């Protein structure tokens, strides 16, 4: 479990505009730069690889209109 990433992921899934103000400098509360980078890149395989909860990845994908199946299978 990547608790810090999951917490942030859940917030972004509920308010995608939070992504706009997110950069490496905003990394707080144990959120690693790689987590932030994966979020900003909307990189679902990277989020998965970094331990994000699959259901939160799906919520994130839904909020940002990313086709999860295509994105994950293409990269996977």
């Amino acid at each position, binding site marked *: 479990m990547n608790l810090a990433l999951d917490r942030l992921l859940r917030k972004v899934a509920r308010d995608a505009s939070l992504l706009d103000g997110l950069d490496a400098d905003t990394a707080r509360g144990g959120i690693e730069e790689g987590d932030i980078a994966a979020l900003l890149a909307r990189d679902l*395989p990277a989020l998965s690889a970094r331990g994000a909860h*699959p259901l*939160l*990845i*799906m919520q994130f994908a*839904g909020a940002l209109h990313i086709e999860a*199946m295509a994105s*994950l*299978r293409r*990269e996977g």
Partner: protein
Amino acid sequence: MACSSISFVGSRSTMAHLVAGYATSHTGMMIRTFDREDPVQARVHRAFGQLREEIATLAPDVIVMVSSDHLNSFFYDCYPQFCVALGKESQGWGDAGVAARSVPIAGDFSQHLLECGIIEGFDLAWAVEPKLDHGFLCPLSLLTPEFDIPVVPLFMNSSTPPLPTFQRCAALGAMIGRAIEARESDERVVLLAGGGLSHWVATPEMGKVNPVFDRWFLDCLVRGDLDAVTALDTDDVGRQAGNGGQEIRNWITAIAACNGRAEVLCYEPVTRWGTGIALARLSAA
């Protein structure tokens, strides 16, 4: 002490009656991306239509529904393994492409279930009018589109480790069955499970379906071989049926409540929906 054993203390002339049990998959893609021209998808929707008519004919007073939240209503600050919804009405999340609707809650029945659980060693969590996501709303939208039948939503943790064992789920189901029998009312009860079968969520295998596992699982239920499915190991199910396949817990709970067998009405490994889609009628042996 079994719940049913205390229910006979005092006088009563009626008892609730389990009139039918059903289990269906609950992926929102069945609604969100339904292609009417696709014969496989059309067969799935025809099966839902058949069940919709069957349930309407049964005219149940209550639906006890076992399904799963998808980290919408619950999160790490408080995450129940099993949770019963109380109150009068819950709202839908409107997630996964399934429209948000108001769902009437059979709060008095929910309270009864909680109390029976306590007596039988299931200290179930409870929540007042929690929102319901597609795990509940997708099957209900397809089966009871008027949303006019009160529901007892029972949330099952099928997604976030540690997951309850399959044996524990079956024991929970047996308790639910006894709680229905012990209910002092003339309510006609339908049991409904939502979830599964094999699917991989947000992993590189997403879109894969394992019909071999799905058919084995369904065959066990048709034979009434609950021992075979409760002997499953969580990690092994993850490997064979995907992380989404853990939702077979909901089916196991429901068939244990019915104490019986399944009749498969439809099984289609729908790769476009990335899920082994199944509908089954559950009945007492």
